[in-house]
């Protein structure tokens, strides 16, 4: 774990803007989940800062949640593509690569392999975060082939079931019948079976969900990253509504997310036996570490 590149040089510390100094002192770097997890995401400027998305954007919320859940933000690189999502992703203090249209999983393939050859003894996490269009339409072949090749990184699809950034066109992930731009008579084919495709292509950990439960969502993100480190490709298909194009009043965004969480985004978690072993081990270790810290705290209090 290297924090050197985010540690201010001693002499310049007082010449840096405060929020940069706070990155290390109060930011999520080098911290445990209890100290810096989603439960505390309000305290970090990096995750709090004004996002450039529409008011009430559920995607912006989920992206913040992703960053708050990272097991090791100081060793993580995110990759995105054109779409609303990258506007928020680029606000975080984690490196973000913005490539060409839909090529995030191809980029991640190169990046992950290059990291492994340059840093054989380090863990560097790579996550692609793209919309339904980038992941399942324009980037489809690159997404699928990165899974088929067994590339070890995490793919997160922010599914708002529409091309929000270009003004509300129908996507492969739009539900059948949805009347959207470029589907003026209603979309005439089914929503693409993303998680089935992921399973067929060899993803070893797959979750479909509507991230309304903060703890459950964080757990899934971490599981996906831990498994990708050791076993193979992992995929999270998350519902992140577009309240503008689907005309969801801001105050109803949460209710809509809960509603879809009961419907086509019903929680579904798949893992291979190999993935399961990793999850059980890592979560066991985390639990033990939590216990140990608690015990130490109690001991300290007693003393």
């Amino acid at each position: 774990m290297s924090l050197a590149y985010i540690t201010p040089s001693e002499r310049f510390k007082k010449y840096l803007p405060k929020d940069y100094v706070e990155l290390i002192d109060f930011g999520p770097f080098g911290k445990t989940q209890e100290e810096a997890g989603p439960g505390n995401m309000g305290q970090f400027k990096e995750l709090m800062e004004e996002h450039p998305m529409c008011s009430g954007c559920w995607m912006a919320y989920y992206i913040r949640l992703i960053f708050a859940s990272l097991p090791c933000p100081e060793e993580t690189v995110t990759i995105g593509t054109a779409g609303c999502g990258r506007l928020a992703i680029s606000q975080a203090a984690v490196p973000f690569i913005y490539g060409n249209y839909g090529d995030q999983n191809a980029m991640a393939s190169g990046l992950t392999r290059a990291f492994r050859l340059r840093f054989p003894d380090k863990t560097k996490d790579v996550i692609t975060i793209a919309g339904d269009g980038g992941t399942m339409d324009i980037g489809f072949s690159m997404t699928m082939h990165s899974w088929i090749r067994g590339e070890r990184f995490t793919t997160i699809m922010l599914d708002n079931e529409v091309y929000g950034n270009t003004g509300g066109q129908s996507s492969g992930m739009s539900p059948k019948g949805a009347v959207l731009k470029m589907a003026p008579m209603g979309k005439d084919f089914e929503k693409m079976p993303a998680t089935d495709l992921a399973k067929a292509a060899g993803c070893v950990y797959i979750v479909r969900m509507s991230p309304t439960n903060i703890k459950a969502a964080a757990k899934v993100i971490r599981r996906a990253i831990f498994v990708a480190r050791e076993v193979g490709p992992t995929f999270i298909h998350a519902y992140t509504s577009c309240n503008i194009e689907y005309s969801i009043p801001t105050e109803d965004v949460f209710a809509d997310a809960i509603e879809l969480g009961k419907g086509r985004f019903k929680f579904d978690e798949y893992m291979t036996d190999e993935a399961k072993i990793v999850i059980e081990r890592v979560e066991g270790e985390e639990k033990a570490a939590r216990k140990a810290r608690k015990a130490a705290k109690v001991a300290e209090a007693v003393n």
Partner: protein
Amino acid sequence: MSAVQRPVLNKKQVEMNYLLHEAPREKHFITGAQAMSEAVKRANVDMAIAYPITPQSEVMHLVGDVFAQGHIKEYYRAEEELGTMSAIAGASRAGVRLFTATSGPGLIRGLEAIASWPGHRVPAVLGILTRVINAPLSIQPDNLEMAYMLYSGAVMLHAENQQDTFDFTLAAFAIAEKVDVYIPVAVATEGFFVTHAKGYVDMMSEDLVYKEFDPVASPVPAMDNETPPARIQRDAPVQKSNFMSYLIHSVWQQEIWDSNSRAMKYIYEYLGGPVEVLNPGSDIMLLASGCAAAQAREAHRYAQEEGLSVGLVKVKAIRPFPRTEIREALAAAKTVIVPEHNIVGWLCTEVKAAIPNGGIVHEGPRVFGGMTLPVELIMFEIYEALGIEHTIKL
């Protein structure tokens, strides 16, 4: 993970100047595809990614063999060219030395990503083994695809033969990685005519390699979480706001073309300059690049044997375009003949625009669609230009 263990090789790392100019060389009789993969072997490449397309496939399968032999560290066959070129862009952010190659339609398919490499500051080396791109389908050599690369911002070298292919490819890595350049270098040569044909190549020992890639000596930080700044999106999408104008994008583009022009001094250093001129001051100057330069060289030889006032300008660097050098070389010419392997005559257009008296540039001869450019075709133009009677029947 592969069950087969690749051997660990111990090689001597040297500077590019030593490698190209001082290291003892031995003559080999090999194909252009072999020449390119032999250069990759000596370039200490970290990673190669490619999607097969004829005639490039010969090069990249040989590079795969070179990987299996332990000369490079990582290699895979990607899903298609856009995936390939994007993966190169991704790997490049981690700070490794990269190579890929493609041909004709593959280049066009990957062009969206390739055109973004310079702006992304991707110092990869791209082999272009030329091939017909237009319908109907054909696998034959025709370098029209190079015209589509001219405005990408990449440095472009055009190899005449197997020896050039070897030397240019090797030098390309050093040029691409200079801090004041740091953009991709494309090394083009004609498919089949060079890739699948054997020629003599003087090569240094494969125990010598170009010194390791240094991701710190870079005009942009590697995105490896080792180099500051932490808050980095290396290629921020530019959106105009009250606080930002499009000026950032325009100066960024200028920077890419400035970097391209800064490559010229290294083209002099490693390749002896962007042009080779034989018999300067002749009445007729043949000007050509790539295989057309080989045909022109042959025509030049015949013309010398016949005592004709014919000179040759071989253009090695297409980008940066050697405007000054070409002006100088053509200053005394009465006629310039530009043989080319494409229908549009992209080199001819550039040459016409580069000199003050563009009218002396003769259009062609051009062949395309995989046709050979017989020396007789060039001789025909020379005789016609000089008003000499001849017996050439085409």
